[in-house]
């Protein structure tokens, strides 16, 4: 291997040309084929039963997420101007190409089922905007009397009216969003304020904000890394060549993605995070070795120095890269495709970074020359075996006070386990925004005045048996469950189903007598009411609550929050009715984006935990084989396990919920952690083999690998700390957690791992122990 690498040094220009050509090819592929995937439905595994059912149910009942447009007038909505705005906005939204006309609902086009004795009427609340005071009062009265709109389209304080425009999953774009906002804002006056909320807006805003924020932050991150890297390497040439490794491996990873036609998902933005960490690590370790060698051998030739560097370092670089890549490959077990792709392409990027570190970096040195290095002052007393006083003393301290490390580790692990208990999963989108952001404030406003901006759809399925949902016994149970959920949970603001239509009709057909606001007792009565509604109302409305054969029912619960805790609380109460429905041969299923998000998050985490355990096992096996020693494999896993534990523990204490991004960070933590551990181990082994003196080995390794690890950690931590100034909370969490993981990995490697190597007499031949 080292021969091959050394030979390659002769063909430095050819190597560069080769790399440049492939990179140009990948860049052109990226230009042509790169596509961002923002439709969250594309992230979900299509063949998972929960999603299959939900997707089907969505098409049966035309379940879509709604944009909520709230028209607010502090002096009340029952005046000509406000009602006219409501009408015009409803019509304008209907005109949008992206919105189906029938999917826009407001007081203006809602059905008003009314009746006095002898007649039933399904009519509009208003068509022409009422002008006279009596007309306005009449309207107010009819709204108040109709539970199907009061509190649903009009707030109970009568100051806000909402228009709900449901849109498909795939229509949201920046342009559409801007057009909606523009349309809406045009209708604002001194008295009328208009707010826009709803899941599509939140999802859309997030899909736009996250990359936009990253676009702003990444150049600063790179700049900071560049500066800190320069300070540590003290060479412009070295800094740029190292960043070249990062840049090229990123280009290759994304280039390959583009050329095989895989789009960029939100999680794909984490690929460069890993490549920055690993690329910088390789560069620093290589340069650190080169500089140390040059300091000890002044006047050495370019070729000689680079050969020595490769000779000494190719092994740890290859070992770290392979273990890291294999760790990422374990993400293939995930059921979520974007996560699988993240695993594959990060692994590829890591291997590319290895290739560049061993080929591009040496060729770069050959072309641009060696960095300048101060001659090591060998004569000075360094109080130890290495050339660095600090390394000697810290290694000595760590080894001497080994129980401090062990005790600290035990305490930290214990605390982390406590913290982990507090960890919670959150699939909420809204929680990703600042508490005082417009989007959160608007959502809060609408939730205060209406049922809720988030929906949960319960699908009752009689498994193909027709007309089950015309049966009074069944509908009464449905009604009881709805009331129960509504009454028990603050967070459930509203519910809507077939029973609401039937109760309303029963009341209206019985002279508006409140005693008849119930489900009638006869099957025929229900069937005839439904026929009556079809004959006088818009039968399209019924298709949203029941299927054609009355063998399936869609019950919509409106929630005031979209976080997992709230959804789960509602699910718990609903599920307590499962047995009752079971005896009626009716099964319960859920649908809608909120529910899918919940299942999806669970799925990601389950996969994440599985692959986390698997990758740790694989790494232990791999390193045991590489070092031909099971104990070494186990010791090498200590820093990564620590890193993962602390990461989860701190998330628990800081109330950072597990989400797609934060969960994937644990994979990155392992990737980084193993990199540190292997570099350190390999160095320690060489030194132990050379001197068979573990004290000396510890000090030498500390001076060499230890220093490189610290520098690496400082560079990456400094870079990712920049993200703490991001305006998008998830990006801040990312910055904080990456920094934290880097710190734990480095601290774990240099303390507890060293202590364990030391105590275990690893790599030391038994009979020759000098220091114990």
């Amino acid at each position, binding site marked *: 291997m080292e021969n091959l690498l050394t030979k390659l040094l002769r063909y430095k220009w050819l190597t560069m040309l080769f790399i440049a050509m492939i990179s140009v090819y990948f860049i052109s592929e990226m230009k042509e084929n790169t596509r961002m995937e923002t439709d969250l439905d594309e992230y979900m595994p299509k063949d998972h039963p929960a999603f299959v059912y939900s997707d089907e149910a969505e098409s049966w009942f035309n379940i879509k997420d709604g944009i909520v447009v709230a028209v607010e007038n502090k002096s009340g909505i029952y005046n000509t101007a406000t009602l006219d705005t409501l009408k015009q906005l409803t019509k304008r939204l209907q005109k949008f190409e992206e919105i189906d006309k029938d999917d826009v609902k407001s007081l203006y086009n809602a059905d008003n089922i009314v009746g006095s004795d002898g*007649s039933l009427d*399904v009519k509009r609340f208003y068509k022409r905007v009422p002008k006279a005071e009596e007309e306005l009062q009449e309207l107010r009265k009819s709204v108040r009397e109709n539970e199907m709109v009061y509190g649903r389209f009009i707030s109970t304080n009568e100051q806000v009216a909402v228009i709900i425009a449901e849109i498909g999953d795939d229509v949201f774009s920046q342009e559409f969003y801007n057009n909606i906002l523009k349309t809406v804002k045009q209708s604002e006056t001194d008295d009328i304020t208009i707010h826009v909320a709803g899941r599509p807006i939140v999802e859309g805003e997030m899909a736009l904000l996250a990359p936009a924020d990253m676009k702003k932050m990444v150049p600063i991150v790179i700049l900071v890394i560049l500066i800190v890297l320069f300070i540590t390497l003290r060479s412009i040439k070295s800094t740029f060549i190292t960043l070249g490794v990062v840049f090229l491996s990123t280009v290759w990873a994304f280039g390959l993605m583009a050329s095989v036609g895989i789009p960029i998902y939100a999680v794909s933005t984490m690929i460069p995070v890993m490549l920055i960490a690993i690329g910088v690590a390789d560069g620093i370790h290589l340069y650190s070795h080169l500089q140390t060698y040059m300091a000890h051998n002044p006047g050495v030739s370019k070729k000689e120095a680079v050969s020595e560097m490769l000779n000494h370092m190719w092994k740890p670089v290859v070992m770290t890269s392979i273990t890291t890549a294999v760790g990422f490959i374990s993400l293939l077990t995930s059921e979520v495709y974007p996560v699988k792709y993240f695993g594959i392409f990060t692994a590829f990027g890591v291997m590319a970074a290895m290739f560049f570190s061993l080929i591009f970096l040496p060729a770069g040195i050959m072309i641009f020359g060696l960095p300048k290095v101060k001659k090591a002052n060998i004569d000075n007393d360094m109080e130890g075996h290495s050339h660095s006083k600090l390394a000697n003393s810290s290694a000595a301290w760590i080894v001497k006070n080994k129980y401090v490390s062990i005790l600290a580790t035990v305490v930290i692990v214990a605390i982390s386990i406590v913290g982990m208990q507090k960890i919670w999963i959150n699939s909420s989108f809204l929680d990703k925004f600042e508490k005082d952001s417009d989007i959160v404030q608007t959502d809060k406003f609408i939730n205060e005045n209406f049922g809720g901006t988030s929906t949960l759809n319960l699908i009752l399925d009689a498994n193909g048996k027709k007309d089950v949902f015309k049966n009074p016994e069944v509908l009464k149970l449905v009604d009881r469950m709805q009331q129960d959920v509504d009454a028990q949970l603050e967070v459930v603001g509203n519910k809507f189903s077939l029973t609401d239509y039937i109760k309303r009709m029963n009341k209206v057909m019985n002279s508006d007598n409140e005693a008849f606001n119930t489900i009638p007792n006869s099957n025929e009565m229900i*069937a005839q009411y439904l026929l009556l509604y079809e004959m*006088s109302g818009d039968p399209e409305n019924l*298709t949203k609550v029941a299927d054609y054969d009355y063998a399936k029912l869609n019950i919509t619960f409106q929630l005031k929050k979209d976080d997992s805790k709230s959804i789960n609380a509602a699910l718990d109460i609903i599920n307590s009715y499962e047995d009752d429905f079971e005896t009626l041969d009716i099964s319960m299923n859920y649908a809608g984006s909120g529910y899918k998000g919940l299942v999806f998050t669970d799925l990601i985490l389950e996969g994440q935990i599985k692959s986390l355990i698997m990758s740790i096992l694989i790494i232990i096996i791999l390193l045991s084989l590489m070092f031909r020693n099971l104990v070494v494999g186990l010791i090498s896993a200590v820093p990564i396990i620590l890193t993962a534990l602390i990461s989860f523990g701190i998330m628990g204490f800081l109330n950072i919920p597990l989400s797609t991004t934060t969960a994937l960070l644990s994979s990155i933590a392992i990737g980084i952690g193993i990199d540190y551990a292997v570099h350190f181990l390999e160095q320690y082994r060489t030194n132990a083999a050379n001197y068979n003196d573990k004290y000396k080995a510890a000090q030498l390794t500390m001076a060499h690998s230890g220093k490189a690890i610290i520098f690496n950690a400082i560079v990456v931590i400094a870079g990712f700390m920049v993200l703490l100034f991001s305006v998008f909370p998830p990006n801040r969490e990312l910055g904080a957690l990456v920094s934290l993981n880097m710190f734990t990995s480095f601290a774990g490697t240099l303390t507890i791992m060293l202590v364990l190597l030391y105590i275990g007499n690893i790599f030391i031949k038994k009979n020759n122990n000098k220091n114990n």
Partner: protein
Amino acid sequence: MKTIKLIAIALLTIIGLSANAQLTGEQIVEKAYNRETGNDQTSTLTMTLTNASGQNRVRTIQQYTKDFGDNEKSIMFFQAPADVKNTSFMNWSYDTDQADDQWIYLPALKRVKRISSDSKSDYFMGSDFTYDDLGDRKLNADIHKLLREETINSKACYVVESISKDEEYMYSKTITWIDKETFIGVKKEFYDEDEELLKILTIKKVETISGFQIITNSEMKNIQKNHSTSMVLTNVKVNTGIPASNFSERMMTRGI
């Protein structure tokens, strides 16, 4: 002055002559509208609604219709499905602008109820037909224009475009293929407010019963919703002399 008058007369004559040779859109629709279909009709209507996922709702209705000159009355009784059997529905429509009078009798409620609907744009019993589509639409509500002549299903047809005079009407326009010989509309396209094709009506079968041409099988397909309604008439009898007293609330509860 005289010359102008003469020219005017001459022009009018020419227009009149050519109109005789070639009917205007207005005249074609009028002929179709006034086509003789008898004074009363009895039939069994089988209405099949099919939704986008291919599920069906089949309803069998016994219906009676009688033309009273300036108004038309119809009464219908549900035979199937069983849970709505004997539900009956009565409709009186008027040649004037007066809104239809409608009643429904729900046997489970044992009472006849008036129902009123805002407009003739309402769909008939959850089908894809509005009351207007079923023939309630007044001739003069639209401006009719002959577009071209065309042969479909080996029938020579006039193709007439009708644009509503009321801008708020649910159809921006309709295009009707009218058989040149019988003046039966054999196909009709309905365009929505945004001038996009909404529905297509196809006449599938016309039978001669007691000397009258009666449409016995037609299908309305909503293109945008992928929903369709088929109406098949059987046991059709024309001019049997249904007594006027049959169209009453009492008959609705009792059945004919």
